[in-house]
């Protein structure tokens, strides 16, 4: 029997599903059977594999077997059958939602096989808690190259030639940013990693910090060499406990082995990194607000008529990049810009990590070459819509992204294309909606989120978003007027053009895009006082179609507010005054008798 490795996913999603218990169970079980197993496998916890929905995930190598939904109770069987007997356990293998077949290697699943991993290359493979695992995977080789084989200009030129654009959403060319900072004759200069990921549903930066913290450090250290910078900061939102812990540990280990600190690897270059914990404001993901926060001031953005590469942290030249951008740097330095430019589409080199969430079957993190169509992303990788319902729209770019309808599913996903249709790349959030999503309520929800998260400094953002929220709430409650649509567009235009920072400038996207592509839904709410998706409570009534109701009584049992009445085998009725329109009865009914009007 050859040497085996059991990799247990301990990303946040899997941990929440109990993967730490699975890890413990493996250790206990193998300890117990030490005598029976020829070579005790090496059990390690890894970062997130992406397919969080099917966690906890356990991979066994070199057999190339991946098990999903593993529970501590399955561990004994896995050790007996797979580790000792070399046999696969069918029920734990990946189930292909289209062919309904089980797949042995996760690399052959639709979810994984279409992905190209650069930023996520090590995640799920290495133990983020052990620097040696990163070194074994080729880590810190790029740093050696930058330190001993390249000049600062070489490094900057390589990044420039790669065409790498900021993965935090701005899409600004990273190399150009570095070059601007490099050319300024002023010191000290600073390097910052933005790990204040705040988009609801997005977790790629978290996953990188948790699953491969050294790649972020290596990217930053390479930049510090190229730009001759001695101090760096990693700003991590405080809610990301595991990311904070893993980054801290990584910094300690990197210092122990002299990849960080004084005279890095015996060279003349010194660089130190400090972690700053964010206070939980969404707006602190905006670069100038983030810098204000590091300085100890309130997290409010400033106008960037002078870029932070010139006038950043404490007024000094500063390079700020997002976690995912930093994760790309070591690979580009190692493999070269030419290799990188071959991936992706014109002007949008490389890959982008998306968090595919919402009403899609395979939710999770995916890294794909830019230019891939929305259709491939949602239907091939994502496996289509839950319950095979009708797809309605996808919102890209987080809360201030726009909604893209199904007519535009052929579009390639990159910075420029998304912006041209009224949305944006943002940090790569992708929220899929189906026929049961009301687009007016969807817009209202995000506008409400942004109203709360606006820093409140400028009138257009603070008051504009608040008034848009008011108008949208009115429409959802059946109090809308047709003239509200023009008023909404007018405010949206001003908020977009007149706001100080990116939060305000992009905040109207959910409103403008839904008004553009789903105007009929708005009009239905206003003219007919009807919400076709059955979401807006004031405009909706749930009822049971007596012709289709078999009187099974399941809906009655599942109705928390006891709004359903009826005797067995007789059609049931819903009492409108008690109904809270939670939709549970619709999901429960096997006869599709519960309807919305």
């Amino acid at each position, binding site marked *: 029997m050859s040497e085996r490795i059991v990799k247990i996913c301990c990303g946040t999603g899997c941990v929440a599903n109990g993967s730490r218990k699975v890890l413990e169970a493996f250790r206990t079980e193998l300890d117990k059977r030490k005598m029976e197993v020829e070579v005790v496998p090496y059990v390690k916890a890894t970062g997130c594999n992406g397919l969080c929905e099917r966690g906890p995930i356990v991979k066994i190598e070199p057999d190339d077997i991946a098990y999903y939904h593993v529970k501590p109770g399955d561990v004994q069987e896995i050790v007996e059958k797979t580790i000792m007997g070399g046999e696969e356990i069918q029920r734990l293998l990946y189930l292909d939602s289209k062919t309904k077949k089980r797949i042995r290697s996760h690399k052959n699943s639709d979810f994984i096989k279409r992905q190209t991993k650069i930023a996520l290359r090590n995640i799920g493979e290495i133990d983020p808690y052990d620097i040696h695992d990163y070194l074994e995977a080729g880590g810190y080789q790029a740093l050696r190259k930058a330190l001993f084989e390249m000049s600062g200009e070489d490094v900057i030129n390589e990044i420039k030639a790669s065409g790498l654009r900021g993965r935090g959403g701005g899409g600004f060319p990273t190399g150009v940013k570095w070059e601007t900072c490099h050319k300024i004759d002023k010191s000290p200069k600073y390097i910052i990693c933005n790990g204040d990921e705040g988009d609801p549903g997005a977790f790629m930066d978290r996953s990188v910090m948790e699953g491969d913290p050294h790649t972020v450090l290596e990217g930053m250290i390479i930049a510090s060499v190229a730009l001759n910078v001695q101090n760096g900061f990693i700003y991590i939102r405080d809610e990301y406990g595991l990311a904070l812990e893993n980054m801290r540990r990584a910094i300690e280990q990197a210092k122990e082995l002299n990849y960080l600190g004084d005279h890095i690897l015996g060279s003349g270059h010194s660089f130190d990194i400090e972690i700053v914990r964010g206070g939980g404001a969404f707006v602190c993901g905006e670069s100038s607000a983030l810098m204000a926060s590091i300085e100890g001031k309130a997290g409010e953005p400033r*106008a960037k008529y002078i870029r932070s590469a010139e006038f950043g942290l404490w007024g000094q030249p500063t390079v700020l990049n997002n976690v995912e951008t930093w994760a790309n740097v070591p690979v580009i330095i190692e493999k070269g810009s030419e290799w990188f430019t071959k991936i992706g589409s014109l002007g949008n080199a490389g890959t982008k990590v998306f968090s595919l969430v919402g009403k899609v079957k395979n939710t999770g993190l995916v890294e794909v070459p830019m230019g891939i169509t929305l259709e491939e992303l949602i239907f091939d990788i994502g496996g289509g819509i839950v319950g095979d319902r009708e797809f309605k729209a996808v919102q890209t770019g987080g809360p201030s992204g726009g909604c893209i309808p199904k007519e535009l599913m052929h579009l390639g996903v990159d910075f420029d294309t998304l912006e041209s249709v009224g949305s944006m790349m943002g940090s790569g959030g992708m929220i899929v909606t189906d026929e049961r999503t009301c687009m007016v309520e969807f817009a209202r929800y995000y506008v409400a989120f942004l109203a709360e998260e*606006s820093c*409140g400094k400028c*009138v257009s953002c603070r008051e504009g978003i608040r*008034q848009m929220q*008011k108008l949208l709430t009115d429409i959802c409650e059946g109090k809308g007027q047709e003239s509200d649509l023009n008023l909404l567009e007018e405010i949206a235009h001003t908020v977009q053009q*007149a706001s100080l920072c990116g939060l305000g400038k992009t905040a109207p996207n959910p409103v403008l895009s839904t008004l553009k592509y789903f105007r009929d839904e708005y009009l239905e709410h206003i003219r007919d006082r009807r919400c076709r998706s059955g979401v807006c409570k004031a405009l909706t009534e749930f009822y049971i179609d007596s012709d289709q109701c078999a009187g099974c009584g399941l809906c009655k049992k599942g109705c928390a507010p006891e709004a359903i009445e009826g005797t067995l085998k007789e059609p049931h009725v819903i009492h409108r005054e008690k109904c809270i329109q939670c939709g549970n009865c619709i999901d429960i009914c096997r006869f599709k008798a519960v309807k919305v009007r």
Partner: protein
Amino acid sequence: MEYVKVIIDGKECSAEKGEFLMDIAERNGILIPHLCHHESLRGLASCRLCLAEVTENGRSKIVTSCIFPVMRDLAAKTNTEEIKSMRKTLIGLLAAEAPGNDKISQMAEAYGISDHSRFLSDKGNECILCGLCVKACEEVGCNAIAAINRGTTKKVATPYEEPSAECIGCGACAHVCPTGCIEMEESCGVRKIWGKEFELLKCNVCGKHFMTKEEYDYINKKSDIADQPVCKSCKQIEIARKIMEV
């Protein structure tokens, strides 16, 4: 000194490199509406009314002129149809935020805004959160007030909304407030501001109450000169008299 050529609304103006667009415009008699900029305090770009469309290197963008530094030759327009329309929307938003405020009402009237019925106006005060008061307090060196909370719940307050130990009752905040919404009451030798009462000192010359004791002490401590308390107008008369003597 480097100079740049700026064309504002068709008028050619000369300016030093790095000067702010609003200052250049004002010097040349072009008035751009604003609320959060004060002659003695640089604007904070929070009211957004001083929007201008700037074209440099063939590319146009919307900027706030109070804080936009002119670094190269450019053309700026402060009153295009688009800008006027956005300014109108912004004034409408301000009018909903501070209903009943005279200054804002006048502006709304000038821009032909009469109907606010579709807007929510439930804030119940006249503050437009321009931030000038906070900046004035910071400049004085007291830092007694700050903007607290964020988004729609943001407001200016003392720490924990309790009478502040730092406040010297100088009233600089009320003086710079564009909507005049900071309450400062004076009666029987007592000034009341930010929930704190201050004893007022009398002018040594005319005998009128004019300055809080805390402000007087603060100035003496800072300047190291223990002058007798004399009010501004008496001081002016005194200086004028000295000049006459010379």
